[in-house]
């Protein structure tokens, strides 16, 4: 395959960086998903705080990655929009690397997911502590070795899969669109890891969850590398 020399855009100092612009656009385009993800995780947290003893500590750390992924959909929506409007086509014509475009969207998705994660941890844990809950070692470990890494792993995995899905397909509306499919893709790793971890000895639990999160991130980055290396540039063209 012909090698293509490309560049990463770096604007003059007085112009806003494209990554910052993409993040801001992600916040605007994905505000509905962001509001939904944040609202659901907060409502569930408050419900769990008032449930019977022990339910919060078991359930709260598991729900956060799912709703953080839902909140991050703005990034993927930008990618689908940029492709259909010809933004990717122009960027490639000017020599921007597809990998840089993928990375930019990924940063936007991670920022969006961080908003949900931060809100969930602040409000959920705040309410838990305010109602007399105790942070046990198990809860602390679960938050640090499952909730946080799996949130980012699920977001990275679903965003990358969604971007590749979007590049390989013609635009579809509704659930069958990349933005509709992506939350389902994010559920798969989190559920799979939970099933495997629960079936394993307690001593291996966090190795499995932490290792699996790292594996999903590596898999997503490998998908970016492979797709930007081998995918035809025409896949980034608008189908319009």
């Amino acid at each position, binding site marked *: 395959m012909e090698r293509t*020399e490309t560049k990463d855009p770096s604007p003059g100092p007085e112009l806003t960086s*494209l990554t910052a612009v993409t993040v801001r*656009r992600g916040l605007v385009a994905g505000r509905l998903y962001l509001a939904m993800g944040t609202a659901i995780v907060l409502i569930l947290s408050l419900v769990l705080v008032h449930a019977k003893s022990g339910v919060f500590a078991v359930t709260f750390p598991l729900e956060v990655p799912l709703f953080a992924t839902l909140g991050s959909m703005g990034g993927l929506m930008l990618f689908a929009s940029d492709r259909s409007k010809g933004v990717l086509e122009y960027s490639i014509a000017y020599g921007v690397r597809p990998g840089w475009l993928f990375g930019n969207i990924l940063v936007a998705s991670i920022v969006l997911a961080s908003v949900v994660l931060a809100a969930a941890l602040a409000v959920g844990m705040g309410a838990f502590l305010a109602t007399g809950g105790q942070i046990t070692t198990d809860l602390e470990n679960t938050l640090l070795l499952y909730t946080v890494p799996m949130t980012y792993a699920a977001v990275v995995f679903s965003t990358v899969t969604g971007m590749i899905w979007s590049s390989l397909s013609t635009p579809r509306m509704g659930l069958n669109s990349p933005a509709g499919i992506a939350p389902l893709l994010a559920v798969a790793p989190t559920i799979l890891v939970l099933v495997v971890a629960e079936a394993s000895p307690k001593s291996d639990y966090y190795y499995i969850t932490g290792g699996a999160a790292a594996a999903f991130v590596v898999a997503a980055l490998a998908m970016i590398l492979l797709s930007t290396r081998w995918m035809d540039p025409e896949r980034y*063209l608008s189908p319009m």
Partner: protein
Amino acid sequence: MRPGTPGLVCDHVSAGYRATPVLNGVSFSIGAPGVYVVLGPNGAGKTTLFRTLAGILAPTQGSVAIDGLPVRDQRTRDRIHFLSHLDGIPEGLRVDEAVGYYAAIERAHREDVDRVIGLLGLEELRHRFFSELSAGQKKRVSIARVFLRERDVYLLDEPTANLDPRVAAEIRELLLSLSRRRIVLYSSHNLFEAREIGSYVLALKAGQLSLFGRISDLRSATYSVGVRAARGEEHLPPERKRGEYYVFELNGPEDVAPLIQDLERRGVQVREVKEMGNPLEDLFT
């Protein structure tokens, strides 16, 4: 035509989309500055040609180069401006942010953004969201990016579509002034526009280059008019009759008035004169 030839060289290029070939063995070489109007009916391959020349689509056969360097080399990309039929403006941006977005990609500066906004008459729109603009205003914003930095080759796919006649004329003037020192490839469905600004024409038909030449040569070679007579039809040469019209081949539109005077001297009262077989129109059939 060899890859080392100076200028823009398209050498036996075939290109298309996945299993659908569109261009088939297109070859031409452009060395001199000027406006090269790309004409052809819908589906002839104009957009695919522009995408291939811009290095977005890889040819399945053949090559595209500028001054001997492949078009997909970054040094060559930096010499090309590309404008597609899509506006390419990212969602959720205001006009000045949209121009700034491409300025960032172009490594241009804030003053370039301000200059281009002034040049395209976008001052009053600069703080409005792109999505709120009319089709013509959107097109103006979309065109703005090609004036951020001067480059050697401009690939412009229908740059004046959706523009009102005054703005279209202003854009044509800007491009004409650029074309004195740059190569401008310009696709259009507007034959008036092609005649007005084009120095050369590249015609595509079914993915192949059917014509490449000076527009002036094309006009003088086959310009013809049809004449219908109200009276004195017997004085018209019968061998020129095609249907209801008597067809005369002329050097150009400037010969129409003398033809009518000549016919009237011969006793023909002319009812109608119609352009027949306009060579540019023929390129669309």
